[in-house]
């Protein structure tokens, strides 16, 4: 008879995360958290469909015909909400194949659909933790700093009491993003112009969204000398913030679930233990 090494486990963490990926909240429902699952479903899908409505389903029409491929949705933040992106591609895809004007609200709408993908990614992490945690508040405590790290890079580390690390993350990532924006003269703040770079840059979180709402989609009337450098800086800043979020999540997960902390040092071999089971 196989004994469950973790008696507190509510279900399979991988199943919970996969269910959430396909349908927001489904993983939580699978773990018995129906109310939370419903709230997540409404939040994630509400953001997604509001965004879709605001952009008229035309997000992928930003792409020039030669850049349109099945990889386009895979390389967009919306991938975090798999059910949503599949629905969007089935119903709207790359459009009817003719050039038509974009709605005025497309920038904000496209941002909301991307945000729903990130939020569902966080919901997947929460479901995965919830399946292993002793209580729901423990899973919330793991997720909260991770989500804070998306709001402001480094904030998650600060919430965990890792002040130096948080400040280094904030200084490095924000200076990369700001420098990239200056080098590209703001042209990086446009999904229409740089679809794939924008997807990476979206990982910088709220600062990126605010900057785009304030200065995005500016008219470019001449060659920008360092535009390529600027795009790389912005994109790398966003991708590195995702790495920082994994670090935050791993730290909280170790603390709450009693797991060993990640280290590049080779861990000592576990001592052989003898478990006696009395029936």
């Amino acid at each position, binding site marked *: 008879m196989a004994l469950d090494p973790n008696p507190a486990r509510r279900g399979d963490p991988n199943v919970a995360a996969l269910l959430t990926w396909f349908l927001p909240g489904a993983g939580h429902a699978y773990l018995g958290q129906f109310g939370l699952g419903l709230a997540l479903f409404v939040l994630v899908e509400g953001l997604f469909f509001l965004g879709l409505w605001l952009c008229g389903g035309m997000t992928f029409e930003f792409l020039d015909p030669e850049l349109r491929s099945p990889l386009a949705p895979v390389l967009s933040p919306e991938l975090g909400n798999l059910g949503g992106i599949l629905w969007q591609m089935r119903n709207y895809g790359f459009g009817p194949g003719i050039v038509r004007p974009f709605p005025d609200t497309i920038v904000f709408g496209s941002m909301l659909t991307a945000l729903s993908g990130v939020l569902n990614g966080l919901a997947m992490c929460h479901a995965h933790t919830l399946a292993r945690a002793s209580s729901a508040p423990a899973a919330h405590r793991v997720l909260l700093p991770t989500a804070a790290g998306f709001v402001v890079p480094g904030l998650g580390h600060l919430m965990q009491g890792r002040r130096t690390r948080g400040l280094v993350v904030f200084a490095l990532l924000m200076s990369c993003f700001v420098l990239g924006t200056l080098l590209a003269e703001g042209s990086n703040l446009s999904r229409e112009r740089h679809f794939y770079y924008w997807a990476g840059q979206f990982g910088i979180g709220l600062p990126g969204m605010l900057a785009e709402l304030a200065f995005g989609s500016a008219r470019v009337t001449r060659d920008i000398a360092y535009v390529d450098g600027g795009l790389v800086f912005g994109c*790398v800043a966003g991708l590195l913030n995702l790495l920082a979020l994994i670090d935050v999540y791993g730290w909280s997960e170790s603390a709450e679930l009693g797991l060993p902390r990640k280290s590049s*040092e080779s861990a000592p071999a576990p001592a052989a233990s003898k478990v006696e089971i009395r029936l």
Partner: protein
Amino acid sequence: MTDILVHLLLFLFLGTAIVTLGTFHSDADDARARKVWPRRMLGFFGGCALLILVMLVCEHTFAALG
């Protein structure tokens, strides 16, 4: 020349960010991360320098127009 210098400085800055965040990702403990950071920096920039050297040799050997 100024252009090369600017590119080099930008690369150094971005490389530092990549190595630092990579170190944070692999080592959750700050003391351990501080310990391995210089070695990782050396490895990253040394590797990049080697790659540049190989590319320059290749360019000079196979693609020189002069």
